[in-house]
Protein backbone atom coordinates (compact mmCIF):
# COMPACT_ATOMS: atom_id res chain seq x y z
CA UNK A 1 0.00 0.00 0.00
CA UNK A 2 1.44 3.38 -1.02
CA UNK A 3 1.56 6.31 1.31
CA UNK A 4 -1.36 8.10 -0.37
CA UNK A 5 -3.66 5.09 0.00
CA UNK A 6 -2.47 4.61 3.55
CA UNK A 7 -3.14 8.26 4.34
CA UNK A 8 -6.69 8.12 2.95
CA UNK A 9 -7.52 4.91 4.79
CA UNK A 10 -5.81 6.01 8.00
CA UNK A 11 -7.38 9.46 8.06
CA UNK A 12 -10.91 7.98 7.72
CA UNK A 13 -10.40 5.49 10.55
CA UNK A 14 -8.50 8.00 12.66
CA UNK A 15 -11.26 10.53 12.32
CA UNK A 16 -13.88 8.00 13.39
CA UNK A 17 -11.87 6.99 16.45
CA UNK A 18 -10.93 10.52 17.48
CA UNK A 19 -14.44 11.89 16.91
CA UNK A 20 -15.77 9.02 19.02
CA UNK A 21 -13.37 9.87 21.81
CA UNK A 22 -13.28 13.68 21.71
CA UNK A 23 -16.27 14.87 19.69
CA UNK A 24 -16.42 16.37 16.20
CA UNK A 25 -14.46 19.58 16.86
CA UNK A 26 -11.49 18.37 18.87
CA UNK A 27 -11.51 15.01 17.08
CA UNK A 28 -11.43 16.66 13.67
CA UNK A 29 -8.53 18.93 14.61
CA UNK A 30 -6.62 16.07 16.19
CA UNK A 31 -7.07 13.99 13.02
CA UNK A 32 -5.65 16.82 10.93
CA UNK A 33 -2.64 17.04 13.28
CA UNK A 34 -2.08 13.28 13.11
CA UNK A 35 -2.27 13.22 9.31
CA UNK A 36 0.17 16.15 9.11
CA UNK A 37 2.50 14.24 11.42
CA UNK A 38 2.18 11.16 9.19
CA UNK A 39 3.15 13.23 6.15
CA UNK A 40 6.19 14.67 7.91
CA UNK A 41 7.38 11.21 9.05
CA UNK A 42 6.06 9.17 6.11
CA UNK A 43 9.12 6.94 5.73
CA UNK A 44 8.97 5.81 9.34
CA UNK A 45 5.15 5.52 9.37
CA UNK A 46 5.08 3.43 6.17
CA UNK A 47 7.51 0.91 7.67
CA UNK A 48 5.34 0.37 10.76
CA UNK A 49 3.31 -2.75 11.38
CA UNK A 50 0.27 -0.83 12.67
CA UNK A 51 0.58 2.74 11.39
CA UNK A 52 -3.04 3.68 12.19
CA UNK A 53 -2.63 2.53 15.78
CA UNK A 54 0.49 4.67 16.10
CA UNK A 55 -1.21 7.67 14.50
CA UNK A 56 -4.15 7.23 16.86
CA UNK A 57 -1.72 7.81 19.74
CA UNK A 58 -0.38 10.90 17.94
CA UNK A 59 -3.96 12.14 17.54
CA UNK A 60 -4.68 11.43 21.21
CA UNK A 61 -1.74 13.58 22.26
CA UNK A 62 -2.94 16.39 19.98
CA UNK A 63 -6.51 16.09 21.27
CA UNK A 64 -5.44 16.22 24.91
CA UNK A 65 -3.53 19.39 24.13
CA UNK A 66 -6.67 20.88 22.53
CA UNK A 67 -9.00 19.83 25.33
CA UNK A 68 -9.98 22.47 27.84
CA UNK A 69 -11.77 21.89 31.12
CA UNK A 70 -15.51 22.20 30.78
CA UNK A 71 -15.45 22.00 26.99
CA UNK A 72 -18.60 20.43 25.53
CA UNK A 73 -17.47 17.64 23.24
CA UNK A 74 -20.81 16.58 21.80
CA UNK A 75 -23.50 19.00 20.64
CA UNK A 76 -26.98 18.71 22.07
CA UNK A 77 -29.55 16.51 20.35
CA UNK A 78 -31.53 18.47 17.73
CA UNK A 79 -35.29 18.65 18.13
CA UNK A 80 -36.04 16.59 15.05
CA UNK A 81 -34.23 13.56 16.55
CA UNK A 82 -36.37 13.62 19.69
CA UNK A 83 -37.88 11.44 21.09
CA UNK A 84 -36.01 8.73 19.18
CA UNK A 85 -32.78 9.98 20.76
CA UNK A 86 -32.75 10.97 24.40
CA UNK A 87 -31.65 14.60 24.98
CA UNK A 88 -29.38 13.34 27.75
CA UNK A 89 -27.32 11.18 25.38
CA UNK A 90 -24.44 13.67 24.81
CA UNK A 91 -24.02 14.18 28.55
CA UNK A 92 -24.22 10.43 29.16
CA UNK A 93 -21.52 9.87 26.52
CA UNK A 94 -19.34 12.49 28.19
CA UNK A 95 -19.62 10.64 31.50
CA UNK A 96 -18.20 7.42 30.04
CA UNK A 97 -14.47 6.84 30.14
CA UNK A 98 -12.63 7.74 26.96
CA UNK A 99 -12.06 4.07 26.14
CA UNK A 100 -15.69 3.05 26.80
CA UNK A 101 -16.96 5.95 24.67
CA UNK A 102 -14.61 5.14 21.80
CA UNK A 103 -15.55 1.46 21.80
CA UNK A 104 -19.31 2.11 22.02
CA UNK A 105 -19.28 4.69 19.22
CA UNK A 106 -16.92 2.82 16.91
CA UNK A 107 -18.92 -0.40 17.20
CA UNK A 108 -22.48 0.92 17.29
CA UNK A 109 -22.27 4.16 15.32
CA UNK A 110 -19.57 3.45 12.73
CA UNK A 111 -20.09 -0.32 12.49
CA UNK A 112 -16.55 -1.46 13.29
CA UNK A 113 -15.89 -5.00 14.43
CA UNK A 114 -14.39 -5.58 17.84
CA UNK A 115 -11.15 -6.95 16.38
CA UNK A 116 -10.81 -3.91 14.13
CA UNK A 117 -11.39 -1.57 17.07
CA UNK A 118 -8.79 -3.47 19.08
CA UNK A 119 -6.29 -3.11 16.23
CA UNK A 120 -6.99 0.60 15.95
CA UNK A 121 -6.73 1.28 19.67
CA UNK A 122 -3.86 -1.11 20.25
CA UNK A 123 -5.74 -3.41 22.65
CA UNK A 124 -7.07 -6.96 22.46
CA UNK A 125 -10.62 -7.73 21.23
CA UNK A 126 -11.58 -9.02 24.68
CA UNK A 127 -10.57 -5.67 26.18
CA UNK A 128 -12.74 -3.95 23.61
CA UNK A 129 -15.67 -6.21 24.52
CA UNK A 130 -15.20 -5.41 28.18
CA UNK A 131 -15.15 -1.63 27.59
CA UNK A 132 -18.11 -1.94 25.25
CA UNK A 133 -20.24 -3.83 27.79
CA UNK A 134 -19.40 -1.43 30.59
CA UNK A 135 -20.04 1.57 28.38
CA UNK A 136 -23.43 0.31 27.24
CA UNK A 137 -24.44 -0.53 30.81
CA UNK A 138 -23.47 2.96 31.95
CA UNK A 139 -25.41 4.51 29.07
CA UNK A 140 -28.51 2.42 29.83
CA UNK A 141 -28.33 3.41 33.48
CA UNK A 142 -27.89 7.09 32.64
CA UNK A 143 -30.74 7.13 30.13
CA UNK A 144 -32.89 4.75 32.21
CA UNK A 145 -33.57 2.35 29.35
CA UNK A 146 -31.93 -0.68 30.98
CA UNK A 147 -34.95 -2.81 31.60
CA UNK A 148 -37.19 -1.59 28.82
CA UNK A 149 -35.05 -2.50 25.83
CA UNK A 150 -33.07 -5.50 26.99
Amino acid at each position, binding site marked *: MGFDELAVDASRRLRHALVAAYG*PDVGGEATADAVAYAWEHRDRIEAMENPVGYLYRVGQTAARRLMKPGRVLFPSVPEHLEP*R*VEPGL*PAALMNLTEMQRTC*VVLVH*AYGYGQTEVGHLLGVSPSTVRSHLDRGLTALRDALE*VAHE*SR
Partner: protein
Amino acid sequence: MNPVETQVAEYFSWLEAEVRQPEPIPLRSAQETIPSGRRLMLAVAAGLLLIVAAVSFVIYRQDDVAPERSPDTPSTTPITTPTATPGRICRKNCQGRRPHLRAPRPNRRASPVR
Protein backbone atom coordinates in the same frame (compact mmCIF):
# COMPACT_ATOMS: atom_id res chain seq x y z
CA MET B 1 -37.81 4.15 23.89
CA ASN B 2 -35.08 3.06 21.49
CA PRO B 3 -32.20 0.93 22.71
CA VAL B 4 -29.06 2.90 23.47
CA GLU B 5 -27.22 1.28 20.55
CA THR B 6 -29.81 2.65 18.12
CA GLN B 7 -29.76 6.04 19.79
CA VAL B 8 -25.97 6.24 19.52
CA ALA B 9 -26.12 5.20 15.86
CA GLU B 10 -28.80 7.75 15.03
CA TYR B 11 -27.10 10.57 16.94
CA PHE B 12 -23.75 9.96 15.24
CA SER B 13 -25.25 9.64 11.80
CA TRP B 14 -26.79 13.09 12.33
CA LEU B 15 -23.47 14.36 13.72
CA GLU B 16 -21.55 13.09 10.68
CA ALA B 17 -23.99 14.73 8.30
CA GLU B 18 -23.78 17.95 10.29
CA VAL B 19 -19.98 17.97 10.36
CA ARG B 20 -19.61 17.18 6.66
CA GLN B 21 -22.23 19.57 5.38
CA PRO B 22 -22.50 22.60 7.59
CA GLU B 23 -25.52 24.65 6.61
CA PRO B 24 -24.38 27.66 4.61
CA ILE B 25 -25.77 30.95 5.82
CA PRO B 26 -27.82 32.33 2.93
CA LEU B 27 -26.56 35.72 1.80
CA ARG B 28 -30.07 37.12 1.66
CA SER B 29 -30.82 36.27 5.28
CA ALA B 30 -27.49 37.74 6.35
CA GLN B 31 -28.40 40.98 4.58
CA GLU B 32 -31.81 41.01 6.17
CA THR B 33 -30.34 40.87 9.64
CA ILE B 34 -30.38 44.69 9.59
CA PRO B 35 -33.61 45.98 8.08
CA SER B 36 -33.22 48.36 5.13
CA GLY B 37 -34.83 51.35 6.92
CA ARG B 38 -32.49 50.97 9.80
CA ARG B 39 -29.51 50.63 7.44
CA LEU B 40 -30.46 53.93 5.79
CA MET B 41 -30.77 55.63 9.17
CA LEU B 42 -27.36 54.34 10.21
CA ALA B 43 -25.81 55.58 6.96
CA VAL B 44 -27.34 59.06 7.38
CA ALA B 45 -26.20 59.25 11.01
CA ALA B 46 -22.68 58.21 10.06
CA GLY B 47 -22.59 60.83 7.28
CA LEU B 48 -23.77 63.60 9.60
CA LEU B 49 -21.21 62.61 12.20
CA LEU B 50 -18.48 62.77 9.57
CA ILE B 51 -19.56 66.26 8.42
CA VAL B 52 -19.69 67.57 12.00
CA ALA B 53 -16.23 66.14 12.69
CA ALA B 54 -14.80 67.73 9.52
CA VAL B 55 -16.31 71.18 10.29
CA SER B 56 -15.06 71.05 13.89
CA PHE B 57 -11.58 70.19 12.70
CA VAL B 58 -11.49 73.10 10.22
CA ILE B 59 -12.66 75.58 12.88
CA TYR B 60 -10.11 74.28 15.35
CA ARG B 61 -7.29 74.68 12.82
CA GLN B 62 -8.34 78.22 11.87
CA ASP B 63 -8.28 79.27 15.53
CA ASP B 64 -4.69 78.19 15.96
CA VAL B 65 -3.19 79.67 12.78
CA ALA B 66 -1.62 83.09 13.34
CA PRO B 67 -1.42 85.54 10.41
CA GLU B 68 1.72 84.82 8.45
CA ARG B 69 4.30 87.48 7.89
CA SER B 70 7.70 87.30 6.23
CA PRO B 71 10.51 87.68 8.80
CA ASP B 72 12.40 90.16 6.52
CA THR B 73 9.67 92.72 6.11
CA PRO B 74 9.28 94.91 9.14
CA SER B 75 5.90 95.13 10.61
CA THR B 76 4.00 98.27 9.71
CA THR B 77 1.52 97.87 12.48
CA PRO B 78 2.43 99.43 15.76
CA ILE B 79 3.40 97.01 18.52
CA THR B 80 0.57 96.90 20.90
CA THR B 81 -0.39 94.58 23.61
CA PRO B 82 -2.62 92.01 22.01
CA THR B 83 -6.07 91.78 23.38
CA ALA B 84 -8.77 89.24 23.05
CA THR B 85 -10.64 89.45 19.78
CA PRO B 86 -14.17 90.50 20.54
CA GLY B 87 -16.88 88.13 19.54
CA ARG B 88 -14.67 85.04 19.65
CA ILE B 89 -14.62 82.46 22.33
CA CYS B 90 -11.37 82.05 24.15
CA ARG B 91 -10.65 78.42 24.64
CA LYS B 92 -8.33 79.07 27.56
CA ASN B 93 -11.22 80.38 29.62
CA CYS B 94 -9.41 83.62 30.42
CA GLN B 95 -12.60 85.66 30.17
CA GLY B 96 -11.05 88.24 27.87
CA ARG B 97 -8.00 89.00 30.02
CA ARG B 98 -5.58 87.20 27.78
CA PRO B 99 -5.16 87.43 24.00
CA HIS B 100 -7.04 84.90 22.08
CA LEU B 101 -4.28 84.40 19.54
CA ARG B 102 -0.62 83.97 20.24
CA ALA B 103 0.97 87.38 20.74
CA PRO B 104 3.27 88.48 17.91
CA ARG B 105 6.94 88.55 18.81
CA PRO B 106 8.35 92.05 19.29
CA ASN B 107 10.26 93.22 16.24
CA ARG B 108 13.78 93.64 17.63
CA ARG B 109 15.13 95.49 14.55
CA ALA B 110 12.39 98.03 14.76
CA SER B 111 12.89 98.60 18.49
CA PRO B 112 14.67 101.86 19.50
CA VAL B 113 18.49 101.67 19.96
CA ARG B 114 19.58 101.70 23.56
